[in-house]
Every structure is written in structure tokens, then in C-alpha cells.
């Protein structure tokens, strides 16, 4: 912007004005990064340093001890915990089952609704649609009762299955299916493809981008579940990592294994943040498309 042409008294002021957006954005970035930085630093110090409230702004030497202890051991200085290794596994299984399950059952039902005509079609469509209005949180207690009656407490099935009905994903796929040209379907019919062949050979490959995009946001949705796993898991072996952290913190007294908590927090953030950063394109597409 500012070059030889805008020389004179103007250019300095002009340059400062050009800087304002950068300054605001950098402040924004810092506000979002600061807590993470503190946590990263904290995870490299010992519990006492953190507990005294005198955490330095530079890394300490306890990183290996903290991470390896949190990763595999079931107790710290002051209490016993579920090892991160196990909790990560639980979170991973839950997030993957929810993401894959939601995509699978949604794409099948969207296929049925978009490509077939049958009695009660709209009834089913509206039934799925209604689920969009009721997040699990608002019907949590009765849903919990159903899961308890089915004996699914403390199981992966109980963690995932009640969450995999998805109106959003169904609507998204249906929307996409409606854009597939009729002639493409007819060409496939003439080539001899029946409905299942068409689904697997043509529709599924064409839906790749949509599947990838949905997968990213559904994985994060699943990973970040809180109230539901809090209710349906009692055994420490079934704890997900997000729940695990708040259990470790308890009432937040100063005398806590803060070093382990911070290491655990870092490990809890890593998978979903990695997914967002490395699959940014899919992530944004999934987020924006699924809200259309």
C-alpha cells in the first residue's frame, strides 16, 4: 500500500492505520493461544510449582515424567486416576463410532428418501427431521432411562448408539443427492446397475467430499461429548478423556496433581485440534454445508 507514491507526512500515519487490523488480529490470536500456552508450560513443571501459583512462563524439566505418568499410571501424588492411554482409547472409540455411525445410517436413509418412492416416505422424513430439534441434552434423563433399561450403561454401544441418529447429516446427503443429474442415474440403469450397485459404484464415490467434511465435524462432535458420557459411564475404565480431566480436578483445590492434569489436558486437545488444523478445508466445508 504505502510506497514511494504516498511519500510525505501522510505515509507514516497511513502505515499506522494499515497496522491496526494486524494488531487487533494478533491480540485475538494471542487471547486464544494464551491459555494453551500456559497449559503446555504447566505440563512441564511439577505439581508443587503450579500449586503455589508461581508457574514460570518458560518450560520446565518435568515434561517426560508428567506425560509418561499421566499416560500409563493410574495414580498421582494425591489421588488415583484412569490412565490417559485408556481414556484416549475410550474417547477415540466413542468419537469414531459416532462419526462413522452417523454417516452410515444417514447416507442410507438419505438414499432411501431421495431415490425411492414408497408409502410413509414423508412420515419417516419428518420423523428424522424432528430429531434435529431435540439435542440429547434436553431429553437426557428419559434417554438415560432407556439406555439403562437396555443394559447399555458402561458400554461403548451405550456411549455411541443413542447419539448416532442425525437429521443434519441426513438432510445434507439428501440435499446433495437431489443435485445428481437424472441422466447419470439413467445412464447407470442402462449400463445395468441396480439400486445397490448404483449406490456403491457411483453415489458413494461421488459423496466422498461430503463424507470427509462430515466426518471431521462429527468426529469433533463425538470427541467433545460431555453430559452423555458423564451419565452412561460409571466405571473408571470407561471414562472418556474430557470427563477424566474434570474428575481429576474435582473441586479445584490448590493441592492437586496439576502437572498431571495439564499433561492430560494437552493430550485431550491434541486429536481434535489436529483434525481441525490438518483437515481445515473439509472441516470448514462440513461446518458450513451442514448448517444450510
Amino acid at each position, binding site marked *: 500500500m504505502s510506497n514511494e507514491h504516498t511519500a510525505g507526512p501522510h505515509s507514516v500515519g497511513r502505515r499506522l492505520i494499515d497496522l491496526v487490523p494486524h494488531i487487533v488480529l494478533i491480540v485475538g490470536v494471542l487471547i486464544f493461544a494464551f491459555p494453551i500456552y500456559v497449559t503446555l508450560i504447566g505440563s512441564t513443571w511439577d505439581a508443587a510449582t503450579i500449586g503455589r501459583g508461581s508457574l514460570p512462563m518458560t518450560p520446565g524439566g518435568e515434561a517426560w515424567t508428567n506425560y509418561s505418568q499421566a499416560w500409563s499410571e493410574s495414580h498421582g501424588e494425591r489421588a488415583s486416576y484412569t490412565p490417559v492411554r485408556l481414556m484416549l482409547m475410550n474417547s477415540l472409540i466413542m468419537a469414531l463410532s459416532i462419526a462413522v455411525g452417523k454417516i452410515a445410517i444417514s447416507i442410507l436413509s438419505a438414499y432411501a428418501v431421495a431415490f425411492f418412492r414408497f408409502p410413509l416416505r414423508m412420515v419417516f422424513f419428518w420423523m428424522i427431521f424432528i430429531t434435529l430439534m431435540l439435542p440429547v441434552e434436553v431429553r437426557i434423563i428419559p434417554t438415560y432411562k432407556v439406555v439403562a433399561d437396555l443394559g447399555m450403561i458402561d458400554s461403548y454401544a451405550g456411549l455411541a448408539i443413542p447419539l448416532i441418529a442425525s437429521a443434519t447429516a441426513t438432510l445434507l446427503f439428501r440435499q446433495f443427492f437431489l443435485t445428481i*443429474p437424472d*441422466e*447419470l442415474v*439413467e*445412464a*447407470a*440403469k*442402462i*449400463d*445395468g*446397475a441396480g439400486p445397490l*450397485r448404483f449406490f456403491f*459404484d*457411483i453415489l458413494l*464415490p*461421488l459423496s*466422498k467430499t461430503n463424507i470427509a467434511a462430515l466426518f471431521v465435524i462429527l468426529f469433533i462432535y463425538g470427541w467433545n461429548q460431555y453430559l452423555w458420557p458423564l451419565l452412561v459411564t460409571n466405571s473408571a475404565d470407561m471414562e472418556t478423556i474430557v470427563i477424566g480431566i474434570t474428575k481429576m480436578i474435582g473441586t479445584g483445590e490448590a493441592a492437586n496433581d496439576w502437572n498431571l492434569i495439564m499433561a492430560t489436558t494437552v493430550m485431550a486437545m491434541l486429536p481434535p485440534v489436529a483434525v481441525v488444523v490438518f483437515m481445515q478445508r473439509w472441516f470448514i466445508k462440513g461446518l458450513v454445508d451442514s448448517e444450510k
Partner: protein
Amino acid sequence: MATVEIKNVRKSYGPVEAIKGIDIAIQDGEFLVLLGPSGCGKSTLLRMVAGLESITGGQVVIGGRVVNDLEPKDRDIAMVFQNYALYPHMSVFDNMAYGLKIRGVDKAEIESRVAKAAEILELGRFLTRRPSQLSGGQRQRVAMGRAIVREPAAFLFDEPLSNLDAKLRTQMRIEIKRLQDRLGITSLYVTHDQVEAMTLADRVLVMNHGVAEQIGTPLEVYQRPASLFVAGFIGSPPMNVLDAVIDPSGQGVMMPGGALLPLARPRPNDANRPVKLGIRPEHLAINEDGLDTSPVLVELVEALGADTVVYGRLPDGEPLLIRMSGLPSCTEGDRLAVAPQPGALHLFDTATGRRLED
């Protein structure tokens, strides 16, 4: 290779009858063009042959087999669509091979058939590309390749050239003609472009509002249109149609202005009968004698280079088009005496619009 017979085929969408009973037997290896204005039911008829649309009444017979209740895949036909309908995620090779794979043709056979089709269509260099990496004309060729490799009993084309620009369309038209001559596969070809119809067809079926107005060779359709509709649809600029009356002796036909045009074959039985008189613009000539003709007032002259179109008006106000070869020999405001070439008069019934046969 096979014959395709369409026997009194009908199609209704609810109360609306889109096809009102069409009959035609297409010979083995024949190229039949379905021609008609938009919405006349060409695609519907073709899609009933393909099995993409259910048949409300009548029969479709392919190779001697009634196919009414067969799925498209069991009818032994291949189809080329206007928008190509290529599978976007498959390579050119896979697009062509897909139908064969589903039918369980063995790999070596698939490869040799695709290779052969690719050679015919000059697609050899593109076999590994995706459709999105091809030009419109190349995509069109892949769509044809997909039909060819199947070696079907019949090809069905639904306006395959409509998405191409004018120059490419002409080029592909010639290619399709060559291809069909070479392969000799029975073909049904839908278009609303009369030039395509005239150049490609062995026979043309002219459709209007779900009925066959005329079935005949391109020349028959041009020279002896069976109805006012065909007369107006085929030929460019369109045929002049005037209200006229057969003279009392049946020897000629009287124009509104009073001029008498002699008939090639007298119609004594039709004496004094009002008729619609059709004369093609290219069959009108300036009459040097000025005898028995009406003076035409020239309103507009379009010089197209090779020929000239004159927009004129008869004394009673009827418009009249005249097409002459060469450069214009008149200008606006001139009065011309014009007369039709002998034997170039078409007579139609005023009520039904059907041709009055000689």
C-alpha cells in the same frame, strides 16, 4: 443388430396424454430421426423404448422380443444423453467399461472392445483422464464410446449434439453418420434441429403433440409434407401458406387477389373448394411475363450472400416470403410479379390441415 417396432404406443402422465398412439417399424440398421418441436414427446417416446419410462399402452418390440416389462439393462440398447451423463469419478476407460463389467464380460474382452471404440473415436490418448479434463466434443465422444462398446441391438440418442457449439455440432454430425454407416446398428435419434434430421436420417418421424404427423425419407418429408404442421416445420425459411379456392373448372387454384395458378393435375371433384395453399419460398420466381400473378410489394430484403430472402406482401395484405439464389435484384418498395414453379403447389384441407393428395 435388430429391428425395433413401436406398436400403437401411448403414454399418459395422469390425465395428460403425452404420446397418443405411435406406430413405426424401424428396419435393421436403419437410422430413424424423431423430429419435432419442444415438448412434442420425442424424448418420452425414446425413453419408453429405453425402458426409462413406463409404457401406458401398446408394445415396444426389439429384435422380435416384446420389451414392455423389461428393465433398461435387459433390453439390449445403449443410450447417448444430451448432457453426456458420464460418471465424473471414473476415467474415460472406466466410463466405457462400466456396463461391460456389470454384465460380467471378461477383462481381456473389455480391454479389446474399449480399445477398438477408442480407436474409432480417436480417444486413445484420453483413456486415463477424467471427464472433467475433457472438452465438450471429447466428452460427447466418450458418451458414444460407452454406447459402442456394448454392441447393442439399438442405439438411442437424445439430442446428443445440443450442448455443442455450432461448428463442433456440424463436425460431430458427420462423425455420427460415418459411425452409423460403419457399424450398421439400428438407431433412434431425437432432435429438434431439422438440418440434423435431414442429413442423418434414413427416415424421419415428424412429431407434434404426441402424434406422428409424417413418417418418410427426408426428401419425402420436404417434397410432400403430409400436413400443414410438417410443411411449416421443415424448410427454412418456412413455407408460405395462403387461403385459396379451387377454381370452378378444377384446373387451377385461385389466390385471394384473384390470380389463378394452374394445378399440375386437375381436381374437378374439388371445384369451388376452399383450401390452404402452400408454396415454398424457394419455389417462387419472378415472373418476367407478369401474367397470372399478383404483384408483390417488397418490404424487406435480406441478402445472405449465396441467396436472398425477400419479405413481401400480397395485394390483400398477406405476407409472402421469396427466396432467390444469388444477390438481390430488387429493393424495398419495388413491386414484383412472382409465380410459383410448375408443380410446386401444396394443397391442404382447411379443417384438418392434412395434405390433399394429387
